[in-house]
Each structure stands twice: as C-alpha cells, then as structure tokens.
C-alpha cells in the first residue's frame, strides 16, 4: 500500500511550505484545499504603508533633475571642486530607493509567512518571475515590489491578457526594458530631431523580450522583422513626468503615458498579422493576439508544469494545461486547475529541488519566524543566492535543480540552518515538527537521525537540512 503524499505535496509543492497544523487542515482533500484558494478575489498585501509607483518615481525624478542641474552647474568648474559634492549627490537616489526596496521585500515576506492562501501566493511569485525585472538596474530598485503589487496581484486569478497588458504598461517594466524613450524613426519627434541633426530611434528591448519571454517563447518562429515591427508598434508607450524623450516633462509623473509624438505612424505586421490601428490601440491589439496565440499557451503551460510538476514535465501534462489555456482564452484559474487535475504532481513527491527562496519561505513558515524591521531580516536571501527581485536578467530565475543544487549553495544552506538552529536553541519541539512539516514525505532515516541528535538545536539543523526538506 502506498502512502498518501497529497497533503504534503499540496502544502510544500503548491504552497510555500507547511505551517504547523496546515497538513491536518488539508487532511485528505488536497485538491479541495487548492480549489478553495482559487475562489474569491485575489489577495492584496495587507495594509502596509507601501507607496505607489507614481509616488516613488515622482520623488526619484526630482532627485534626477537636481543631479542634472548640479552637473550642468559643475560643468565649467575644476573637477576637484565637483567631486565630493557630486558623489554625495549621486548617493541620494539609492538612499531614497533602497529603504523602499527593503520595505517591499519585508512586506512580501511577512505576507508569505502568514498567508492562508499560500498556493495563490506562490502563483504571484511565479508570475513575478515570469515578468521579471531586476533591481540590479537602479531605475527599478524602488518599483520592482510595486510592479508586483499593482500589476500582478490584481490579475493572478484573472485573465492572462489583462495580466499581460497591466505588466507591459507598468512603469517598472517600461523602465527595465528601456521602452520609455524608444522613438519611431518616422515619428513627429524623430523628424523634429532630424532637422537639428539629432538622431532618435527605436529601442527593441521590450518588444523582443515580450515575444521571447512573456508570450510566444523563443522557438515560436517569429523573426527579426517581427521584433523590429513590434518595437515600432510599442513606440510611445512611455511614462509621464521627467521620464519622456528629449525634454518632455508632461503627463502625470510616474504613470503610464502614451506619447503620440514618439509613435511610429502606419500599419505594422507582427507574427503574420497586420495591425493598422491608431496609436496605443495598435499595441493593445498586438498584445491581445499574442496573449491568445497557441505558442503562448504552450510556453506558459510548459513553465507552469515545470514549476509545479517536474523539471522535465510529462508532455501529456503540458498539453493538458496548454489546452485549458487555449480553450478558456487564458482564464488563469482554469489553467491552474489543469495543473493539479492530473495525477502527475501527486504521484511524484519531492520532484523539485527548492530554490533558496522556496527554502527560506518554508523555514519561515514552518518555524513561524518573525520578520524584524531593518535590512538584516532579508539578508538571508542574498547569502543563500537569491536576492529578492534580482534575477539579473529579464528571463527571471531558472527553475531546474541544476541551477540551484551546487555544492557551495548546499553548504550555505547547511551553515544557515545550523546558525539558525543554534540561535533558536531548544525553543522548538523538533521531534513533533518533522511530521507536521513533511507529512508522508518525512522519512524513517530522518526520524531516526533526529531521535539520535545530541541536542534540540542539532536536531533542528538535521531537520532543516534533511533531503526531504531541501525538496518540495
């Protein structure tokens, strides 16, 4: 007779790691527990005093303007007089943005520890990674968190098209992939500039990554010509305030703004379709078609199945999820259901190696650790190799064991777990914790190693480094 892994799979694979009591709550109805979380409105972060993107970018733009003015004023002076002042001035932007970043990560972490809908929260993390921005670009340091709050959370239980439109119009994405100043070669602005012998033109970064990463996927068969045409379509998708091209300062600061003067006039052909809509409607039409394209359904289904079933998911599971995507026109709850309707995820417990983020969240939830104020509480993400909102590229964090199971990475988990266990000492009843967190995946070998431990602290280290705790 085989063990029933379903509660452990639900809590640890689909959720963020069991909290004490969670496996009992799930009981024998793992599917019901997942299904229940898909009902109702998408959860927002509890009131936390976090600021809006527009607010943050308005402050950042003001500092940028001051810096620009200072640099102009300093242009004629000797370099020495400039340097100390200039350096202090330059640090003002990170000084504004870094506390905002820390507050965002803490709010997100606190919510992950406390939430009773951890499966929906994991889906938020999934989409945040699918539509990745990276804070190693200073321009998005303050707004990576607000992108997730404003564009991803509201649509996580909605439709993919709405999610896509919200993300691609969000200032953080436009800044990250450099679209705010991309100018059509025949636009009003480019022609005006040409008369003054200045060259303005396209930046194809956003267009390429939408096709390759956000929608169709790299093997869908689009060409360089599609990328260039789509980049023309997206000209004018910009921001208000001090983020426009040239000297443009108009529009509400830090909000999405379509700037007609930057837009390339005329029809464009993108991925076999011709688009002759005016202005912003052209981009919306392209994104709508991309959202519903069969290649997009396959691409999203593959990534979801890889995240929730296995590094190399069974083709039948991918096909089923892709079909649910297409049949429902991208209705996300129906897509999610297709993930757990089949048996694949339930029959293969521990198929996924935890990322550092998975690992830390499962520790925070399992031990119900408090999240202190100040930067130290989030330093563990850096130390274990997954600094929050910093995947380093628009492809986001990788999602395969190979990318996370390195020797040095393992040693850091062991050292981290041990340091934590030393700090907590005998404050946790570790022997009871094993079955509470790991359910049917809790092995006899780990049980025995915990029983034989020399101290509660050592037992906790052994639990947090057990093979079944390193996987989900």
């Amino acid at each position, binding site marked *: 007779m085989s063990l029933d892994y379903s509660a452990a799979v639900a809590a640890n694979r689909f959720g963020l790691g069991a909290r004490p009591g969670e496996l009992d709550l799930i009981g024998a109805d793992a599917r019901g527990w997942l299904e229940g979380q898909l009902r109702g409105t998408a959860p927002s972060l509890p009131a936390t005093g976090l600021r809006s993107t527009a607010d943050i970018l308005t402050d950042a733009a003001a500092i940028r303007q001051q810096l620009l003015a200072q640099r102009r004023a300093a242009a004629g002076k000797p370099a020495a007089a400039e340097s100390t002042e200039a350096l202090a001035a330059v640090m003002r932007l990170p000084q504004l943005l870094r506390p905002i970043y820390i507050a965002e990560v803490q709010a997100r972490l606190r919510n992950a520890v406390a939430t009773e809908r951890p499966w929906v929260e994991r889906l938020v993390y999934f989409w945040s990674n699918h539509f990745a921005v990276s804070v190693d670009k200073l321009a998005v340091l303050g707004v990576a968190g607000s992108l997730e709050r404003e564009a991803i959370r509201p649509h996580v239980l909605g439709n993919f098209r709405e999610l896509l439109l919200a993300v691609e119009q969000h200032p953080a994405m436009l800044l990250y992939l450099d679209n705010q100043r991309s100018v059509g070669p025949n636009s009003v602005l480019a022609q005006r500039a040409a008369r003054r012998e200045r060259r303005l033109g396209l930046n194809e*970064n956003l267009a390429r990554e939408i096709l390759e990463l956000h929608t169709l996927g790299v093997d869908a068969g689009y060409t*360089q010509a599609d990328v260039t045409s789509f980049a023309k379509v997206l000209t004018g998708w910009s921001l208000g305030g001090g983020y426009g091209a040239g000297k443009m300062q108009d529009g509400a600061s830090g909000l999405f703004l379509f700037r007609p003067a930057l837009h390339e006039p005329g029809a464009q052909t993108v991925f076999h379709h011709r688009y002759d809509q005016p202005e912003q409607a052209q981009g919306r039409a392209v994104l709508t078609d991309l959202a519903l394209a069969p290649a997009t359904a396959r691409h999203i289904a593959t990534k979801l199945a890889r995240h929730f079933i296995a590094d190399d998911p069974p083709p039948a599971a991918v096909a089923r999820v892709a079909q649910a995507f297409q049949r429902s026109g991208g209705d996300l709850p129906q897509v999610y259901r297709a993930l757990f309707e089949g048996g694949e995820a339930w029959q293969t417990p521990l198929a996924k190696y935890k990322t550092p983020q998975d690992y830390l969240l499962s520790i925070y939830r399992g031990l119900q650790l408090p999240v202190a104020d100040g930067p130290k509480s989030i330093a563990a993400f850096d130390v274990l190799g997954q600094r929050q909102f910093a995947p380093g590229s628009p492809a986001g964090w990788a999602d395969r064991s190979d990318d996370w199971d390195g020797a040095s990475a*393992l040693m850091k988990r062991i050292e981290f777990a041990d340091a934590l266990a030393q700090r907590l000492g005998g404050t946790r009843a570790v022997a009871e914790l094993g079955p509470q967190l790991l359910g049917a995946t809790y092995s006899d*070998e780990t049980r025995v190693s915990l029983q034989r431990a020399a101290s509660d602290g050592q037992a906790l280290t052994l639990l947090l480094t057990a093979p079944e705790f390193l996987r989900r």
Partner: protein
Amino acid sequence: MNRDQPAPINRRALLKLGLAAGGAALATRYSFAAPAASPSRFVFIIMRGALDGLSAVPPYADPDYARLRGELAIAAPGAGDGALALDGYFGLNPGLTFMHEAYGAHELLVLPAVATGYRERSHFDGQDVLESGITQPHATQSGWLNRALVNLPAARHRGRESGVALAQNVPLVLRGSAEVASWSPSVLPDLDDDTMRRIADRYASDPLLARRLAEALATGGEVDQSPAQAMGGDAAGAAGAGGAVGNAAMTAVVRSTAGRYIETVRTAAGFLRRDDGPAVAVFDTTGWDTHFNEGGAQGQLRTRLAVLDQSLSTLKETLGDVWPRTVVLLATEFGRTAAANGTRGTDHGTGSAAFLLGGAVAGGRVLADWPGLSARNLYQQRDLKPTLDLRSVMKSVLHEHLQIASGALDRDVFPDSSAAPYVAGLLRNNEA
C-alpha cells in the same frame, strides 16, 4: 547569529575522517597525489548580456564606424578620450588600461569579429550555445568545458577537482560528468564536525546530496580563511543607472559591488595558484546588455569594462608565477547592432569581440579578417559579420594548452564544429 561554542572545523581533516571511517557520503575519487611541476591553467570569463565588441575594440579607422556609431563612437588614439592604440586600425576602449599594457607585453590577443554558431538574438539561447558548445540551443545539459575535462590527460589532473566555478551553483559550461567545484565567499559560521558528520550520514542514501556535500567539503578547507567582507556590503542596485544620473552614478554605485567582485577574483586566483589547484576556472560577469545610454569613451560600458580590467589585473598579480602558464578567454554570447539605436545604446546583434589573455598567449596582435562595416558587409544589413568561429579558438586553446586530443575535441567537446577549424599560433610555442 551568535553561537555559544565556536567549534572551527578543518574540512580537509573531516574529509579524511569521513574517508577513513568509510563514510559513503564522503567517499570521493579525488586524488591527493603529490603535485607535479607547472600545470597549465585556463580561465573562461563569460560576459553575459552581449558585449558591444565595437566599443570594446573600436575599429576607429573603418570608414563607416564613426557614422554608424554617432555619439557612441570612440575617437582614434591621441585625441582626447581616444581609443588605446593597438595596431593602427583597431584600438581598445579607454577603460581597458591593464589589457592595453598586456597587449604591449605580448600577452593579449584581440579577436574583434567572432561569434559562436548561433545566429538568432536571444540572450538565453545565445548563452546556452556559448556554454554548451552545441549550435542547437538546449540540445544538451552539459558544457564544453566539462566535456573537455573528462578528456584531460591524467597527468594533468592532479587537483581534487579539475574545475571550479566562481559561483554558488555551477554554470552550464562546467556541468557534466567530470567533478567540478563551485565556490563563493561565505559569511556564515562553520558547523561543528559532529553535526557535519551526521548530515553526511543522512545524505549517504541520496546520491545528489552526497556528491554535492563531498564536493563542498573538498573545496571548503583551504578557503575558509578568505575575507568575509566580500559578501554582504551595500546591496544597492548595481548598474544600469540611466537618464539624468548618468555616468557619475554608475561609477559610484558600481564601485561598491566592484570591490566585492575583485575580492572574489583574488580569492579564486588563490585556488588556481595552488599546485593542486583546478586546471580550469569559470568567472561569470553580467551587465553587458547596453540598450540604453551605453556611452562611448566615457559612460556606462566604459565603467564596467574598467572594473573587468581591474579584476584581470588582480588575477595576474595574484597568480604570480602561474601567470606564464595561464590562458584567459573572455567571450560573450553575441554582439550588438553596428549602428547605435534610438536611445544612445545598441540592440542585440551578431559578431562581437573576444580576447585571449595571459602569459601563455602569443599576444600583442589583433587577429582579424575584418569584414568591414559598410552596409553590404553587415550581417543582415545590421550587425558586424563574424569571421572567426569562437569554437575554433576554444578548440585550439584546449588542444595546445591543456593537451586535449583533437579526436576528443571533435567528437565529444564540439561535435558539430567541423566548419570551425583549428587556428595555429594562438599560444606561445615554448609552453610546457
């Protein structure tokens, strides 16, 4: 995180202990043979994000260069902020002062128009090809450098691992069946050996974790004394500051992480210097994706190149008498558009520059079959046309420097590289 009884552990000792006790988890096939003299070293530096070769190695004498590049163009040597002189046609980006010295010392070979076999423009597929050595993206889960290590002559395989990656996890280029290590600095305290032994016992039945733990223990011992300051510092956004902040911000902000990177390189070079150190190492660098405000003689790209340049100088200095037996290859997944784009940057392209650096390199030369930048000579009327296959460079270096048999190189390491012939004369003849 305080602990009551700091119990430092010598992991080397533990490893031996584990082996002596027959602990399955710690059983490794690392050799502890006495080191022989003068092993060669190969360092591969991946420049992720698509380096703009035309700015790293500006062809200032090409008649189309200044026109295409506009404000990104770097002037001829001698002009204010001009390129650093090479051969009268090409120069080096003004940020690359150490590399320029190395060129003068005949230790830098400049390859201004190279590419892998990949001809699309996705970073992620392009990096996969650069690392796997196979032209079809995602065709394999192993990297060319690991497959080369499998074929390393036994006499040269005297370290415990033959390869090390400067990262927490091993990048694709070093993944595969040969034992490799990954290393990154740690601020966390060591475990007491009793706890470590219990963890090792528990992993004995888990092949992946047993292998990883053994690798970590084998690498850990001699580097634990490395300075911890390399981690943890200011985690502010590192790069890409655009707009009004401009270059000063880039310099200032990059500096805080640049120091960290250079310290890490210094420690890694310490590994390589050891007699029983690894034969090859891989360093990852990022941030070369300059779509916006790239800068020319000054600016974002120059700043980043200067940090890289400084880390190379550190590498040479730390390697000391191993430097004459060292080859460093710097390469990127593809290049960028020949013309500047509309936002003072460049978009994804094809041909880019690569570099061979080190005491074993027959340097002081630019190796170019220069295709030119006129419209009809550009690849798809858009990008620098590559005239040298990176696999030719990789194969030749592996063959000459690490003595890997050409049969193995053509069959296992670069199986679809028959169109990429070996290039003679990249390295000095007197190399052991």
